């Protein structure tokens, strides 16, 4: 199921911070307007209490909260539709602007792949992946409201070098057009007095050709194939620079489809593959709950 390009444009080319979320208790897709109202009241109350919130000194911002459903953003019918939460500033200057850009955005989603999600009791809603864009103070305000209201728990989703190498392989395997950008891998070298990052750029067609020669199992990718692919890249690098990349830590993977960093952030770069990337992230989030 592909979401409309104009709708997905909102999600592209922004840096999203990833969280895994435990099932929400007592959440109802029909009460989104109520939730928006309750959340804006809660945020106003926190500001009254004097919680430090970044805001322009000139603007006396009142925060307007919008909670909406994204019915197209899901994997299978059993998935709950994605829920988008946005914070807008209600200041006079922003009203003058025709394009009211949100101060902060966060969305819950569940995009299941082939393995069906474990069914949860009726009172619970499973939306294991949470993505945020905007100031950290708003993230913690919204997050703590959801935690209190729906008895759930948020946890930063970390991406290990193993996860990142899988992403590098999966995203290389998808054919993209000739104008695709290079695949870039960034490695951090440990135990040095000065931090050192090594950036390794590979032409996307070369990467795809390498993957095609490694990938033998139909309908699936094995850890062995991922290891062989990465080892080929490492030995090529070693031949030229005499550096063993396998002894460093893979911290960032960037392809034409998406870009992911080990601190748990992602950038979607290609609308056609948005759902596929979300599927991978949903699975990771579910495994880390």
């Amino acid at each position, binding site marked *: 199921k592909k979401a409309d390009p104009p709708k997905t444009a909102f999600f592209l080319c922004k840096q999203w911070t990833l969280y895994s979320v435990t099932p929400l208790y007592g959440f109802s897709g029909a009460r989104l307007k109520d939730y928006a109202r309750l959340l804006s009241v809660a945020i106003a109350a926190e500001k009254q209490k004097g919680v430090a919130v970044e805001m322009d000194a000139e603007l006396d911002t009142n925060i307007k909260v919008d909670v909406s459903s994204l019915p197209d953003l899901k994997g299978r019918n059993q998935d709950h539709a994605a829920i988008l939460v946005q914070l807008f500033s209600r200041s006079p200057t922003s009203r003058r602007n025709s394009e009211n850009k949100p101060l902060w955005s966060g969305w819950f989603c569940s995009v299941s792949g082939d393995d069906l999600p474990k069914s949860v009791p009726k009172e619970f809603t499973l939306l294991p992946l949470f993505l945020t864009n905007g100031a950290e103070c708003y993230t913690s305000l919204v997050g703590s409201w959801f935690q209190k209201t729906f008895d759930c728990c948020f946890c930063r989703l*970390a991406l*290990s*070098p193993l996860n990142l190498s899988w992403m590098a392989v999966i995203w290389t395997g998808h054919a993209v057009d000739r104008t695709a950008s290079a695949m870039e891998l960034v490695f951090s070298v*440990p135990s040095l007095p000065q931090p050192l990052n090594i950036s390794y750029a590979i032409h996307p067609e070369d990467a795809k050709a390498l993957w095609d020669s490694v990938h033998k199992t139909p309908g699936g990718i094995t*850890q062995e194939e991922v290891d062989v692919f990465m080892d080929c890249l490492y030995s090529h690098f070693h031949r030229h620079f005499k550096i*063993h990349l*396998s*002894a460093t830590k893979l911290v960032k993977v960037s392809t034409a489809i998406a870009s992911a960093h*080990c601190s748990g952030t992602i950038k979607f770069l290609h609308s056609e593959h948005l759902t596929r990337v979300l599927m991978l992230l949903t699975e990771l989030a579910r495994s880390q709950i």
Partner: protein
Amino acid sequence: HLATSLPLPSEQDHLRPKIDLIVFVIDIKNKRSLKNVDDSLAYVDASFFLGKVCFLVTGVGRVNCCSVEMDAVSKLAETYCSPVICCELELEAIRVSTAQRLLRLLEICAGHIPGVSALSFVSLMCNSADE
């Protein structure tokens, strides 16, 4: 005696005391360490695999820095019939308790504990790991 890889340099052969236990250290944050251990295993005499070899996996505390799959380590341990000890060297308490475990293992391998042989102890460790 610490070595970064095997085989050990032959110049020191005549000065070296009998080796009772070999501990292969795998850093879970460093993929190359697994390959290094794999290559070094080829230089170990088969008699050592009767309880005088164990694998020490370090860095297990940080799940977001994993570059080595635990499955690969388990497979290695199964192939060479040797136990795996996981630890986190950055925490002093775990460092100390791991050192004590290794010391105990060494005492058994050197034959200092009457009634317990290296082979019987290692099969005990491997069986309890399977459960």
